[in-house]
């Protein structure tokens, strides 16, 4: 998780089934970019809270609130959750991307954070840029035009 204040751009590269979340408090121009890999934290020691949607979102919110961010002003944009490989027969890989999307949506709702935009699903990898000054997010994919949202 990266956090910054002011006119800075945060980047996370090559999101596949992972999800990048851009947290933004426009009044403080405070932004955080979280990169989660799995939907739910089932680690016993919980040594890597930021790797999971549930503990990662809560930890990011905690750190932003410590800097003065307010949930009522805060917005989130998300990107990722793709399915990189299609295994014939369907027996293959659990669709982690889809589970990540569902988990992130459920947790944001529970934490009362407004979801402002999303570029999720499909089967392309995404690099996510987050302009903390303006709150604008941009997704870059292989062989496609950049998408601003």
């Amino acid at each position, binding site marked *: 998780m990266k956090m910054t204040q002011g006119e800075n751009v945060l980047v996370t*590269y*090559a*999101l*596949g*089934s*992972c999800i990048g979340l851009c947290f933004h408090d426009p009044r403080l121009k405070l932004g955080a970019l979280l990169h989660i*890999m*799995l939907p739910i934290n*089932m*680690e016993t020691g919980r040594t*890597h809270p930021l*790797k999971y949607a549930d503990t990662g979102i809560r930890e990011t919110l905690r750190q932003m609130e410590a800097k003065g961010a307010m949930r009522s002003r805060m917005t989130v944009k998300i990107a990722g959750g*793709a399915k*990189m*490989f*299609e*295994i*014939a*027969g369907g*027996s*293959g*890989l*659990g669709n*982690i991307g889809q589970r990540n999307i569902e988990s992130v949506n459920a947790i944001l709702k529970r934490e009362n954070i407004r979801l402002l935009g999303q570029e999720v699903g499909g*089967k*392309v*990898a*995404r*690099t996510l840029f987050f302009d903390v000054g303006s709150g604008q997010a941009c997704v870059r994919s*292989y*062989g496609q035009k950049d998408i601003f949202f």
Partner: protein
Amino acid sequence: MTIKNYEQMSSLEIDTLREIGSIGTGNAATALSQMLGKEVRITLPEVRIMGYNEAIEWIGGPEAVTAGVLVKMSGDMGGIMLSVQKLELVNIILETMLGKGIQSYEELAELEQSALIEIGNIMISAFVTALSGLAGINVNLTVPAFAVDMQGAILAVPMAEYGGMSDYLMTIGGNFVCDGKEVPSHLMLSPDLRSLNFLLRKLGVSNE
């Protein structure tokens, strides 16, 4: 001792995996050589157990586009096997099999893709056959899946699948030497931990 994550492996256990990696890669090179009808040699393969970020840097950064062939293992050993094909290797395969190489991955049409999938599949199968023969276990493989995209996302697939258990990947990289050119090739074996323990026990190196 039952291993709970890759970091806990002893040097003997890592050496054993390295040996398996060498034999597996050797078989994969032989398979490739037979398929292409020309000599393919390997340089000494490197077996490394590393974190995701380190693995990404090792194969050339997250955003570099690459072709990946993925096969899922089940049976006595569960896990994922991934063959990452860089453009140089892709061109050797395509020039030999189809008589024409490509400048970028965007030129891959159905025929070219199918050739790459088949080569990836044969290399992975040769690797797994060597491994299962050595350990005396049965491993089933799924039909291969194929993707061309940023390699960061491709490598994240085994990480996410087994990420709940470990932050480490086992990667086996070696250079193939073909027509006097040395081209990098990467095969990645990510067994789940239960299977890794089973494998080490079968090979008689787990000090239980």
